[in-house]
């Protein structure tokens, strides 16, 4: 059995020691730190990226919140402006309405006064015509002149009776 040939043992042990020690030094000094650094760098990069992503997400959420706040404020101020304008317009309309109504009332009053005046003037004209007619008629019928005062009293009574 070749495994039991003791004369080959020194050579096998020596070359085992040489190759293993060289390999150990290469691995521990060179290869493993390098691979370890690559893995570490990748882990750091991923952690950093995740951190950055979460920071960006928070930032985006803050921006959205600010946007929504601004939107709400704008909506509120728009509603304020709308209400104010409506009130102002309503007030102006009411004022104009009142002015117009006053003007119309004043004109109506003036017109009514004129009518009353015209009516009384017409009545006075009627009275004098009626007195003339009455005096002439009495003169023709009776041949008497009637006193002006009597005629006026009679006419006034007649007008008072008929309105």
């Amino acid at each position, binding site marked *: 059995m070749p495994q039991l040939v003791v004369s080959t043992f020194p*050579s*096998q042990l020596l070359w085992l020691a040489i190759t293993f020690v060289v390999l150990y030094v290469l691995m521990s000094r060179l290869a493993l730190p390098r691979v370890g650094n*690559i893995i570490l760098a990748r882990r750091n990069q991923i952690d950093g990226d995740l951190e950055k992503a979460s920071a960006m997400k928070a930032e985006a959420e803050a921006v959205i919140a600010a946007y929504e706040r601004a939107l709400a404020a704008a909506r509120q101020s728009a509603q304020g402006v709308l209400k104010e304008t409506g009130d102002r317009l309503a007030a102006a309309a009411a004022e104009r309405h009142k002015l117009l109504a006053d003007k119309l009332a004043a004109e109506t009053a003036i017109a009514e006064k004129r009518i009353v005046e015209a009516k009384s003037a017409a009545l006075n004209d009627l009275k004098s015509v009626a007195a003339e007619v009455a005096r002439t008629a009495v003169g023709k019928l009776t041949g008497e002149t009637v006193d002006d005062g009597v005629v006026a009293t009679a006419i006034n009574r007649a007008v008072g009776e008929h309105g």
Partner: protein
Amino acid sequence: MAARENPLAQFIIRPLVPIHIGGVDISFTNSALLMVIAGLVLTVLMLAASRRAALVPGRWQSLPEMLYEFVAKSLIDDNIGPEGQRYFPFVFTLFMFVLLGNLLGLIPYSFTFTSHIIVTFGMAIFIFIAVTLIGIARHGFRFLTLFVPHGVPKPLLILLVPIEVLSYCIRPLTLSIRLFANMLAGHTMLVIFAGFVVPLASFYLVPALFPILIDVLLYFLELLVAVLQAFVFAILTCLYLNDAIHLH
């Protein structure tokens, strides 16, 4: 080949560069050649593949990274804990050296240096001595409590302590024989079945296909054994280190 080859002939140590110093034969042999090749393969694998440190590793770059993380996590962290990271380079070198020794030996006409008891014993005795020294350096005389099992009635200790001491002391033997015997048996079987092919084929061609089929299946089994035994060798080293560091 005229006659059937001796299944053990594949294990013969052949000097390639004869060196004799003071009557001791330290020739550069086929065994030493495979050790050097294993070292070169591992060095190239670890250094060349990690030369361009890409953030997203390619196929070749991810191989050393996977090996690194496998040894760092599955072997060291899970079996020893954070204190074990000091021994990470050693366990990594050991695991990869044995793994490559086993795998390169499966290449036809190459040589399996892990099939020699002196090589596996050399590694095992080194581990045994190192682990014992680490244990004594860390715990002093308290290291001897490793041989006293917990929660055992006092009278039983008279029986159990010698058993613990014995099982501790035969660790280099069990560790080295497990690997050596697995390699020896597997490679011997491969050659024995291969030896049936030519004699059978000289009579009937079709029956000669059966030993070939068996060899193909055995080869896959041996690939599994090569990886598994390297893993077992490394994980036992980790468990021994754990004993020395934590005393159970």
